[in-house]
């Protein structure tokens, strides 16, 4: 009887497969994403229920995490989904930050309309990224890595250039004001900043989600998987690669512009090569080609940079080990462990663990 049963089951499966429309993957946003967004929105309001539960400083740290997440998201569009590596996204971050800073500094009415710096930085960085993407078409793999590396080195130097000093403030940088909450809302500056950044991050997340799930996203990923085959599918691969470069740079530039407002200060040396590398680390640790992974990666880069210091003190003072660990050593060890335990990044690791739990 078992054989007829399995035959019947197989037949049922075949019939179902024959009639079912092929469902489009990732057609809708997962419910847990909405849950995270909802939690993020009520977080600052907790202070009205339990005073002192979440300080302004904590909110500020989360804000910087979200800024990093936007930057990593941009890098992920390029590297994770389109297969073009960049060691120089710190440069676009810098261009975005300076676009915002110069506007806020030089245009007298701009500080009241600080949100206009976001589209301005996006357009500016899209153009710069698109233009950089043109010569990058001829480069692949290691060569593209080197070219973008050069960009990361060049931009901070360019910002110090004496002819630009009138705009950029040279080595001194530009000091700005933090945006204040509008309409007399009973929020502190840090709380308002938190909401401002959160809204932009959520919007950018959904824009990326929508780009990726449609035909444009498929084309981007096809180019990553096999560029020649993508050519033979009638996809204008050159156009896609340069536009993706532009969009990616725009995302990271928006993050830069937000950081200018949040930290209320820009200086060339905060956009060194280490920034580019930490974005790449955020990308790999969070999860390559994973939108949620980009957010995790953003959180990770800020978290680790802040806690590596504390951890190295803890190792020395509290554990009483007879040697010093510098903060960078702790960072390095953490990275090694993470890459060993979760080779697909944190997002990939969570998915694997979830699958194992469900059998």
């Amino acid at each position, binding site marked *: 009887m078992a054989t007829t049963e399995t035959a019947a089951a197989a037949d049922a499966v075949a019939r179902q497969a024959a009639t079912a429309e092929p469902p489009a*993957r990732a057609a809708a946003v997962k419910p847990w994403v909405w849950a995270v967004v909802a939690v993020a929105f009520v977080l600052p309001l907790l202070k009205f229920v339990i005073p002192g539960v979440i300080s302004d400083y904590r909110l500020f740290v989360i804000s910087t995490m979200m800024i990093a997440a936007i930057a990593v998201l941009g890098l992920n569009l390029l590297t994770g989904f389109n297969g073009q590596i960049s060691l120089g996204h710190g440069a676009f971050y810098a261009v975005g930050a300076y676009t915002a800073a110069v506007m806020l500094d030089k245009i007298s009415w701009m500080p009241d309309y600080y949100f206009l710096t976001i589209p301005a930085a996006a357009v500016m960085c899209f153009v710069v990224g698109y233009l950089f993407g043109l010569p990058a078409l001829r480069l692949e793999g290691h060569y593209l890595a080197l070219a973008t590396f050069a960009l990361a080195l060049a931009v901070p130097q360019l910002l110090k250039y004496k002819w630009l000093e009138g705009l950029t403030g040279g080595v001194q940088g530009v000091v700005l004001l933090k945006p204040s909450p509008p309409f007399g809302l009973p929020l502190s500056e840090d709380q308002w900043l938190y909401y401002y950044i959160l809204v932009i991050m959520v919007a950018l997340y959904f824009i990326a989600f929508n780009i990726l799930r449609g035909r444009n996203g498929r084309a981007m990923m*096809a180019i990553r998987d*096999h560029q020649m085959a993508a*050519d033979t*599918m*009638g996809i204008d691969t050159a156009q896609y690669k340069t536009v993706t470069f532009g969009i990616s740079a725009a995302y990271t530039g928006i993050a830069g512009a937000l950081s200018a407002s949040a930290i209320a200060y820009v200086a060339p040396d905060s956009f060194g090569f280490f920034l580019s590398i930490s974005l790449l680390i955020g990308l790999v640790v969070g999860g390559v080609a994973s939108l949620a992974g980009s957010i995790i990666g953003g959180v990770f880069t800020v978290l680790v940079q802040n806690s590596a210091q504390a951890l190295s003190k803890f190792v020395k003072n509290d554990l009483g080990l007879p040697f010093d660990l510098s903060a960078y050593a702790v960072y390095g060890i953490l990275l090694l462990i993470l890459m060993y335990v979760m080779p697909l990044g944190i997002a990939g690791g969570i998915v694997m663990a979830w699958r194992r739990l469900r059998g």
Partner: protein
Amino acid sequence: MTTVLEVKDLKAYYGQTQALHGVSFELLEGGITTLLGANGAGKTTTLRAICNMVRTEGDVVFQGRSIRGQATESIVRLGFAHVPEGRGTFTTLTVDENLRIAAYTRSDKAAVKRDLDMVFEYFPRLRERIQQQAGTLSGGEQQMLAISRALMLGPRVMLLDEPSFGLAPLIVQEIFRIMRRINTEAKCSMLLVEQNAALALDLADHAYVLETGRVVMSGPSDVVKNDENIRKSYLGY
């Protein structure tokens, strides 16, 4: 029968290295022409040169109009479907997404749906694997996917680069049988590059033998197949 594709004195270069030294041949409307030859004879390069993926000289005429020098994606839109060497699977995408990408250039949804049904009729196995990541398919299934993807472009001419490569003989037979059906039912002319000469000559109506970037021999498949000299000197069986 009219000529759908005519290649005239085609030369191709990889950097400084010349890979084709003036290749000429034609493909008849609804026909199957095969390019045979040893490794490095220029078979793959010829297909790439037609799609302008390498630097070329000479001329490629499609339905009476020269297409040489046009961008690859424009040539594809004219009705060329290139099934690349090594299948060119989009490995991290699903079977479904691989097929949808092929419909990228088409706006007629009903026709796309019809072609999708046709593809599944040719290769029912792909329907079973529709949501599977394409990189996890077997070699034979990936070849089926590559041919299906080409079909989804709604092509006039299919350029097939070694569809038998690395596959078990039984699978190869199945795939070649379906290629024959596609040729007659979908009215799609085919230019077939193969190392397996016996197999290719059975399917094709015309054959050209390439050696170091030149055509050294050509004729109807039956003639080439039965000429012992050609077989021994160039085809090695």
